[in-house]
């Protein structure tokens, strides 16, 4: 198509030239002539359209009947299949009831109602006359109220108004009775608290934890705790056993593991999802929410993803009966960072 152009780029007109006058613009040819529809010309087409609309309305009636057949005819039992079938019947009944009316009316409008386009003039959003009147009224209102002449009244009113909003904010203070961020530092773990299975709460013997295995762990007594979910949201732990040679233990944490058994907080340090995926052969922990990846052999350092610090480690040992126990609480707050975390 480019072959049909004329002149060089500078004179072809494809290039903008300044000062195109309105004289060069095209005249508006006006609305295109109306093209009659079949129903406008042919009485039989008109009758047919009328019948089609009526049939669509009848389909709607059938749909409503179908709804009630599903509602009264299907007895819900305890199987999902029955539930699905009733849901399907009620849904499709409603769908036919609605679509029958909707499509019918639209079809009616498109085939039988006039399709002549009508022209209406727009009006100014604001006329100059109205503006002048309004300005005068506002001036009069301000003047009669005297607010601009009496700044003392105005300023004290503004001050009172601003202050009066504060109780409406302050009254929400008791949304929470306990506002001490220190609660986030502590969990149920303490010296001597047994590691138990999640969710059964049965204690775990060190000998049960074979190399390569992983346990979802809660502290003993959690299931009986008063604020069970709140405690669980902080205290859940992942327990895994590696070959002790594979662990790179930093100074001060030498006695935090027991024969290669390590326990780490399960709460992601990014925004708090449970770090639920353990990749056994790479020793990686993966958070399924935002893919933060932690390396178990490097004390759960972040090796990929948006988390910014390692999962806190829970120091563990065994008690006299051979069950795994914590030797203290976590040494840092678990879960996502917060302002007071430090």
């Amino acid at each position, binding site marked *: 198509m480019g072959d049909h152009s*004329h002149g060089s780029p500078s004179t072809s007109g494809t290039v903008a030239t300044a000062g195109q006058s309105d004289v060069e613009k095209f005249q508006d040819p006006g609305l295109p002539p109306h093209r009659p529809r079949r129903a406008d010309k042919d009485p039989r087409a008109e009758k047919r359209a009328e019948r089609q609309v009526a049939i669509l309305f009848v389909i709607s009636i059938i749909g409503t009947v179908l709804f009630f057949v599903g509602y009264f005819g299907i007895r819900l039992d305890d199987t999902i299949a029955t539930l699905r079938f009733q849901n399907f019947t009620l849904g499709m009944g409603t769908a036919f009831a609605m679509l029958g009316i909707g499509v019918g009316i639209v079809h009616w*409008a498109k085939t039988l109602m006039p399709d002549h386009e009508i022209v209406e003039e727009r009006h100014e*959003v604001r006329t100059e006359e109205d503006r002048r009147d309004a300005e005068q009224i506002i001036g009069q209102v301000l003047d009669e109220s005297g607010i601009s002449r009496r700044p003392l009244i105005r300023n004290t009113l503004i001050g009172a108004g601003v202050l009066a909003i504060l109780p409406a904010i302050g009254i929400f203070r008791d949304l929470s009775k306990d506002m001490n961020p220190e609660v986030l530092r502590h969990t149920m773990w303490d010296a001597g608290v047994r590691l138990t299975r999640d969710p059964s709460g049965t204690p775990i013997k060190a000998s049960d934890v074979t190399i390569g295995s992983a346990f979802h762990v809660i502290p003993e007594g959690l299931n009986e705790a008063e604020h069970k979910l709140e405690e669980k949201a902080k205290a859940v732990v992942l327990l895994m056993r590696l070959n002790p040679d594979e662990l790179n233990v930093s100074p001060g944490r030498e006695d935090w593991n027991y024969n290669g058994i390590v326990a780490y907080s399960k709460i992601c340090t990014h925004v708090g999802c449970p770090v639920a995926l353990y990749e056994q052969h790479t020793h990686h922990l993966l958070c399924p929410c935002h893919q933060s990846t932690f390396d178990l052999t490097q004390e759960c350092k972040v090796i990929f993803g948006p988390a910014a610090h390692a999962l806190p480690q829970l120091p563990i040992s065994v008690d006299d009966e051979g069950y795994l126990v914590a030797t203290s609480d976590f040494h840092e707050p678990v879960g996502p960072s917060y302002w007071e975390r430090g």
Partner: protein
Amino acid sequence: MSASTDTYVPKTRVGRITNFVDTRVGGSSIVKEFGRKIFPDHWSFMFGEVALYSFVILLLSGTFLTFFFDPSMAETHYDGVYVPLKGVEMSVAYQSTLDISFEIRGGLFMRQLHHWSALMFVASVSFHMLRVFFTGAFRRPRELNWVVGCVLLILALAAGFTGYSLPDDLLSGNGLRIIDGVIKGIPLVGTYISLLLFGGEFPGTDIVGRLYVLHILLVPALILLMIAVHLFMVVVHKHTQYPGPGRSESNVVGFPIGPVYAAKAGGFFFVVFGILAVIAANFQILAIWDYGPYDPSPVSAGTQPDWYIGWVDGALRLMPGVGEFVIFGRTISLNVLLPALAPAGLLFTLMFAWPWIERWVTKDHREHHILDRPRNAPFRTGIGVAGIVFYSVMWAAASSDLIATHFHVSLNDVTYWLRALFFLGPILGFIVTRRICLALQRKDREIALHGRETGRIVRLPHGEFIEVHEPLNDYKLYRLVNFESPEVLPAQPNKAGHIKRSEKLRGSLSRFFFEDRVAPVTRAELEAAHSHHAEVEAPAEKAEVSGR
């Protein structure tokens, strides 16, 4: 005044009732104003209607659900009909959602209809906004209505989010936990906001009840208010219309409300309802009984948030784990804060401000009632597509794990690619889109000047083959030539003769936007082209778009 009531005496009973109401509320003037008001017709104007109707369906289905839902987070043991969960410890909220699904006839249908309508609501609001943006419908006098629309989008997201968290199942609980983590990342007040919101430590026993009040009272009331303002302004401004023969800045061409438009729009409500009912009848959504009640320990891999939250979640995933530091014993975690706030802040700020940005760059303060075809505003269309790409990259990132498992690629590679696209995608999107727009404009030009290709090849007496072009009729021609193509407006000195820095910036933005442009065909050009056609077809140079 007293005489006016007696001049007209209705004859029928309906007439008497109508007259009674009319003389008390002045119905006649309302009918006079709106009965034959003209609305232009175009398929793209339906997105806003879909949004409105989805919202009505949300109100209807939502009201039904409130009769059965109990937002209490008190502990209970399930004793309903669903066998796998018998005896399981759960909240009353979760149990009542199970009961709605399993024991209330039509309850599951209403839940699914409500959820699907919510997805449709946000989707149609989004498409409606894109239509308004790409056609320039936000320009004077409609800037404020654009702002109201932006507020409605935010409210729609708020409604969706507060509703998503109500069933207290595993998915919604984990969603809340993420929100809690993000809130805790806010400097200074984050921890306190979290403690206030949850009534203490996460999850507490207050949050579902609080979100419930927001979800069924505050947010819908605000949405209704905003819809009222939105529609009021549509009436004040009258609707925009696409360019075409017979349509000008000073008129509205279309169908009258009564009967055609009322029938079409009213019928369309039932169509939208019907389609949503088909979806709700056939496609399961949020089968909460599969996920179980909320428990802070388990999580299911590969779960996705509702689509409209995805982009924020994706931004969280894209961010590398850097930017957490401690100063004076206080922790700032940019690794959470930055992705949670920066992209959304950028997108919404640009969205709210765009009418003013465009007005500032073009210095075009006129009223516009005729829409732009997107190709005729290449810069704006380019910017819009850049925004869509920016959004979509984050959205895709929310499914990075599913992309990795479905296409058997490394999850890390998917993230690296998306990180690169986060920055490069919008730029590429802008460039490619603007080029496509310019190309389409040139194609329009060619068709206007030389007519439609008929595909009919004719051999001339001297042996040359030509393809016969059929000239356009006046109406089609007018459609292609009647548009405005803004030109570069260089920085202007102010009254004191200085060019301020902001004006320089405006000038360079204007250059950036309008340097490449295609001018509409003029009458002179068309005449020249026609006389040219009368002569022998001679090889001509290629027309070029002016470029840098």
